[in-house]
């Protein structure tokens, strides 16, 4: 495994992890932009723009783009979060040149009005689809409640109103600001030649001009709140909990990650033994959602509405207990084994490795090999976790709970 890195004159960063034993290669353009970089007038534009990149360039129609990817047998897609828009493809090594050229062209899209109007229908369908997915809904609304005025609370999808009102001119101006080369990292891993890739990227992307794509990083003060909402037709109670946690840049990330596994992994965790094992909830987990200079521990629980109060009581006592007595060495060891095996399994496929590689660079401007990642996990001590617990109060959470409408 060899790491290489280069920055073009216009600021575009290239990173690569070369593994000659891999049978495929994965490539991704990581654009440092998402819903937190939007004002309320253009809410949802980052995600809508992600769709529009597939609609082609001055010389390529949408259908030609899709055909070109499929001709390469590429496994390709894109995703948008609060703070990143990532375009990726996994291909057999012989198709890497072609897929790189294709993505590089698409990163300068034509954003045609007629494509924009048609794709708006698809975005509205996507919003409707998530309305029928309560787990997604409670996470989205819970995050908004937790972050309040802070930009990390912005919805990735936007609303039916904001999408309906959005104009193609607004999107073009957002694109010009945010898709500057100095705001983009190109990551590649698997079987490939870095120098060859580098020449190609220079050729396709070297002429893009940089701009000021800075991001606001206000601090976040959370004020715990609880909101109980109802929705006609629901059967279950869906709960989302948010409380402060470390950012992506924080050195205590690994200890926080292990704490999240001890407390809220889908099996063998404290959530599992207190909620799922006694059949009070059929799903209960806690995850670490670290972001740029902000972060949250977020939980999701799905239970019978009749058990919702009991579930809240149990969560409160779990948080109080862990704050008072910390975690045991055995719990830490078990969580460590789970995380280590998940790192090992993921790293076996270039596509599984790509996102880790890219985000490490985007957030920390550093390369971490899988071996170094493993060393960090191994180094976490019970005391490190106690430090996290004394710094971040899990009991001080924001709750968004959605259940059936009362008759």
């Amino acid at each position: 495994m060899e790491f290489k890195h280069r920055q073009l004159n216009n600021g575009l960063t290239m990173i690569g992890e070369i593994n000659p034993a891999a049978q495929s290669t994965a490539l991704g353009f990581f654009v440092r932009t998402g819903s937190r970089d939007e004002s309320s007038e253009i809410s949802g534009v980052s995600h809508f723009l992600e769709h529009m990149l597939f609609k082609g360039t001055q010389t390529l129609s949408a259908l030609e783009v899709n055909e070109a990817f499929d001709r390469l047998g590429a496994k390709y897609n894109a995703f948008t979060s609060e703070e990143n828009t990532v375009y990726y493809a996994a291909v057999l090594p012989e198709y890497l040149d072609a897929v790189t050229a294709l993505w590089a062209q698409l990163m300068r899209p034509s954003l045609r009005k007629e494509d924009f109007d048609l794709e708006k229908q698809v975005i509205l369908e996507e919003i409707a689809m998530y309305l029928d997915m309560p787990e997604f809904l409670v996470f989205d609304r819970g995050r908004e409640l937790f972050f309040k005025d802070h930009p990390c609370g912005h919805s990735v999808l936007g609303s039916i109103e904001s999408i309906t009102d959005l104009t193609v001119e607004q999107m073009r101006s957002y694109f010009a600001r945010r898709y500057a080369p100095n705001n983009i990292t190109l990551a590649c891993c698997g079987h490939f030649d870095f120098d060859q890739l580098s020449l190609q990227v220079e050729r396709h992307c070297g002429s893009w001009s940089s701009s000021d794509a800075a991001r606001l990083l206000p601090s976040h003060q959370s004020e715990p709140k609880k909101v109980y909402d109802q929705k006609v037709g629901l059967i279950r109670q869906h709960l989302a909990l948010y409380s402060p946690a470390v950012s992506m840049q924080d050195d205590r990330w690994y200890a926080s990650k292990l704490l999240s596994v001890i407390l809220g992994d889908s099996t063998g965790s404290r959530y599992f033994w207190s909620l799922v094992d006694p059949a009070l909830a059929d799903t209960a987990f806690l995850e670490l959602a670290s972001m740029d200079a902000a972060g949250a521990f977020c939980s999701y629980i799905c239970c019978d509405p009749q058990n919702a109060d009991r579930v809240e009581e149990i969560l409160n006592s779990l948080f109080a207990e862990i704050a008072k007595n910390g975690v045991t060495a055995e719990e830490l060891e078990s969580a460590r084994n789970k995380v280590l095996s998940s790192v090992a399994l993921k790293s076996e496929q270039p596509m599984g490795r790509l996102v880790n590689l890219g985000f490490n660079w985007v957030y920390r401007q550093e390369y971490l090999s899988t071996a170094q990642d493993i060393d960090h996990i191994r180094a976490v001590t019970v005391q490190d976790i106690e430090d996290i617990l004394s710094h971040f109060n899990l009991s001080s959470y924001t709750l968004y709970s959605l259940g059936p409408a009362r008759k």
Partner: protein
Amino acid sequence: MTKMDFYQLSNGLTLVGERMNHVQSVSFHILTPGGASCLPDDCCGAASILADWLFRGAGNRDSRRLVEALDGLGIHRNTTITANHLTFNAALEAGNLEPALDLYADILLSPRLDAAQFELSRKLAVEELHSLDDDPRSKVMLLLYEQFYPDPFGRPGQGKEPELLAMTADQCARIVGQLFKPSQIIISVAGNYEFETICRRVEQLFSRPGVGQAQTVKPVIQSRPYTHYPNDGAQVHIGLMTAMPPIGAGYYYETMAAVSILSGGMSSRLFTEVREKRGLCYSVGARYHTLRDFAGISCYAGTTPDKAQQTFDVLWEQFQRLQDGITEDELQRAKVGLKSSLIMKSESTSARSAGIAGDYFLLGRVRTLEEIRQGIERLTVDSVLDFLRQHPFETFTAVTIGPKEIRV
């Protein structure tokens, strides 16, 4: 060139494997004859209870110590229920394979089956069933399979609420006792392993007599073409399925090409016609779903109520137009897509051990990746069209969940 490993115990239990170089992990699947169609009538939900109950203590470990032991080995695990099997899957660091097999042998052969724990497992199974009501997208596909396949092959592994509530611990424990039919158990393994070591261990753990053969079932053909389940959601969730020959009938590659042309990549027909040209859906796709004796292409689309009728009409029209002709370029895209999926799957131990187990059950042998690659390579426009004309899409089964019914 990969070589398939094969070993059979004298009681009939089969072990199949493929060694993968360059990985540090290993994955195994244990297929047991506890799928929804193998269980007594009114007991198909037992599989859902068992998937939880079996893990609540086994051998000399109680529930907590068993879960701790599994977690301690870093095992990523899940238990799935299909028409034919209750399947246990584990993926882990290669060095822990033997102790992991020990734990699964305990789970399968010496579960505690504590009656108090049974009540919790049953309650969880009911809770999961209720949660499905808040997930119409998943629910519509379960209802579709139930309506499409001849009974009992479409029965949902989750069961039905009245049967879950009526089930007793004794009844379920009897089912567990009937599960160990060695001639019908398949263990597949893929990754970094020593086959001789595994064979020795499996001999030690599973060399015991079983409980006899599978009962034969008489499939009952279903006749409902369309069912609508009203709800107050934002979308109409459409499930559509049409019959195809099962994998063993010899048309696997032609079927996969047809599905790929319909729904492989983003240039495929369904995505292009339904989403790209008309903006009817965000989510639309089709896949080949095969059991041993029955199979079909199933298709999902979710759309807002006013677009539901048009979405359905466009979907079915695209199925029917397939036999009118396909282009050389379409077939080429399908072939390269199928081949690249194949190679990428070969990098994942879990995907490979699932593939091996599925092959052995459905075909009675395991295809090497090279054999599959050649099968894809041999496809021509004529061979795919001949197949489609011999097996036209004439009838379908459809299910919708949502605020508006459609006309079919």
